[in-house]
C-alpha cells in the first residue's frame, strides 16, 4: 500500500501475469491508475499543492471589432460587405475569409433579428448552477446575409416560449452606461409571440 498525505490510498493493481498470446485477445489487458475520491483533496487525504494564478490581460480589439464596439456605444450594429462574394458579414472583419481580400464597405445593420438556435442554460462559466437560467442564442441580424449571426442572450421571455425563427430586438443599455462592449446590448427581447 502506498501512503500519501498521511492517509492510505489505494494503489494500482499490478498487471495480471498472463501469457502474451492470452492477453492479446482482450486488449487493453489491464487498466492501471489510482482513482481518488471526490473529497480526497479537499479533506487532504492526498499530497498536493495548490495555486491560484492571477494573470491579467488587456486585449486591443483590433481594427474591425473596435469599430463594431464603438458602433454599439452609439446604439448601432455595423457589418461589413465583400463585393466579390457579396456577403454582408457580422461580426465585422477587415478581410473576407472566403475571398481572402480586404472588405469593401461598412454597412449599418438593424437592431432586430431572428433566432437561429438557442439553449436554456442552467450553468454558468464555472459550471455553477444559475438561480435563473440564461438563454444564449445565435441571432441572425437583419440587414446581414442569411445565416450571419452573433452570439448573445435573450431576455423578457420565458424559456419555454423561445423557438427557432423567433423575431427579436436588441434591448440597449442607457446611452451613458454604454462602454463600447458586446454587453452594451443587455439582451434581445421577442418582437412577437408564437401563435
Amino acid at each position: 500500500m502506498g501512503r500519501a498525505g498521511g492517509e492510505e490510498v489505494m494503489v494500482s493493481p499490478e498487471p495480471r501475469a498472463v501469457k502474451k498470446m492470452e492477453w492479446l485477445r482482450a486488449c487493453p489487458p489491464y487498466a492501471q491508475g489510482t482513482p481518488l475520491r471526490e473529497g480526497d483533496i479537499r479533506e487532504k487525504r492526498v499530497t498536493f499543492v495548490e495555486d491560484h494564478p492571477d494573470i491579467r490581460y488587456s486585449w486591443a480589439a483590433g481594427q474591425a471589432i473596435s469599430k463594431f464596439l464603438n458602433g454599439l456605444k452609439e446604439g448601432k450594429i455595423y457589418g461589413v460587405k465583400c463585393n466579390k462574394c457579396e456577403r454582408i458579414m457580422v461580426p465585422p472583419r477587415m478581410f473576407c475569409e472566403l475571398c481572402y481580400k480586404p472588405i469593401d464597405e461598412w454597412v449599418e445593420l438593424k437592431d432586430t433579428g431572428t433566432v437561429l438556435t438557442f439553449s436554456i442554460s442552467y450553468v454558468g462559466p464555472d459550471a455553477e448552477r444559475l438561480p435563473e437560467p440564461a438563454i444564449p442564442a445565435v441571432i441572425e441580424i437583419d440587414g446581414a446575409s442569411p445565416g450571419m449571426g452573433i452570439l448573445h442572450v435573450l431576455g423578457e421571455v420565458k424559456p419555454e416560449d423561445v423557438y427557432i425563427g423567433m423575431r427579436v430586438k436588441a434591448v440597449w443599455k442607457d446611452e451613458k452606461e454604454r462602454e463600447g462592449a458586446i454587453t452594451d446590448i443587455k439582451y434581445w427581447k421577442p418582437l412577437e409571440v408564437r401563435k
Partner: protein
Amino acid sequence: MGCEAMEVEGISGLEFQKKQNVAIVGAGMTLWRRRLLETGRELSYLAVKQALEEAGLTLDSVEAVVMGSAPDAFDGVHMKGDYLLDGAGGSDRPYIRVFVGGGTGVFAPIAGYWHVASGLFDVVLVVCEEKMSSVHPHAQTAFRYIWDPILERPLRPNLTWIFAMEMRRYMEVNKVKHEDIALVAVKNKRNALDHPCAQLAERITVEDVLNSEPIALPVRRLDISPPSDGAAALVMVAEHLARRLTDEPVWVTGVGWSLDTTWWTNRDLYFPRYVAEAAKMAYKMAHITDPRKQIDVVEPYDPFDYKELHHLEGLGLARKGEAPILTREGVTERDGDLPVCPSGGLLGVGNPIAAAMGVKACEIYWQLAYRAGKRQVKKEVTTGLCQAWGDLMQIGTVMIMSNKRP
C-alpha cells in the same frame, strides 16, 4: 440501407506519394477516472509501457515520439508538451506535441502516420494524455478561455452552450427527437461495461437520459461525457518492420483533417462540414468510394450523444437525418451491420480530451486486429474508421485503418 456514395472527387493536392506503408503494432491505455492520483507524466508512462508490451518493443527502438495533449489551462502548466516529455518516452529523440483541442485524439496518430509515411522514421510512438481534474471547481473553468475574449466571454458563456445550440439546430433541421438521440447514450454506456478502463459504464434507459439534470437544454447530464484523467499510446512502424513484429498488423490507409471558419455564429450548425471535408480527404487516400459499404466499424467522436449521429452524417455513413434511424434499428450496435462506438466511447469510457485516442484510434486498431475481447464486434471486419472533433467545434480529424495491406 444503402447510402448514396459520398462525393470524393475534386479534392486537390492529394497526389500523396508516401515513402512506405505504416502499420500499428501495439496500443495501450490507463484507467480513466474523474480524478487519478498519478501525474500526467506517470499516466503517459503507464500507457506507453502497455503499448510497447503489446508491440514487443522497448523504448530503445523508438525513433521519434508524437505527444497529444489539449489546453494548457487544464494543468496550469504552459509548454505542457515539454512537461510531459519524459513520461512519453520523448527525451533524447525527435519529439513534437500536436494540439487541435478535442480533435487531438485522432490528430496525434495522423501526425504519427506522416512521421513514418514520409520515410523519416521507422518506429514512432504516439502518446496522448489529459488530466482534467487539477483545475477546480470544474474543468469548465479552463474551457472559459476557449471563447473569444472580446465578443463572447463578457456574456459569461459555459462551453456547453455551443453544443446545446448545435444539438438544437441539428434536431430542428433534421426533425430529430431527443429520445432518438438518447439511445446513443444508452448504447455507449452499456458497451462500456466490457471496457476495463471505463469510468461511466452503466445500464441506463432513454427515460433516465430525458429526466437527468438539465445542464444547457436540450443537453442534460446523461447526454454528456464526463471530464476524465487518463492516457493512451500507439506504436506505429514501417512496413518492413511490421511483419517481423506481428502476424496481425493493422495498416493506416487514409488520413484527413479540416477546419471550418472560427466565425462559428456564421455557420449552419446542423451539419459538420469540417468532418465531411476531413472524411473526403481520408476516403480519397484510402480509395473508399462508398463509405457505408466499405467501412465495417466506426468510432466517431461522441462527447455528447447527438455528436455520434452528427458525425456519422458528416462522415457520409448515414444520410442527413438518417443516423438516428440507424441507431433505433440497431444497425449501430456491436452485433449490427455498422457497429458504432463498440468501445463504449467517450460517453461510457470517459473523455480525457486528447487521450480520447484510447477509445478511437486504439479501439479501431484492436477491433481490426481481433483483440477487442468482449468488445469485439460480431461481423467480420476489414476496414475501420475513427474520427475526432475539436477546437471551437470546427476541426474534423479522420483516420482509416485496414487489416489488409494497402
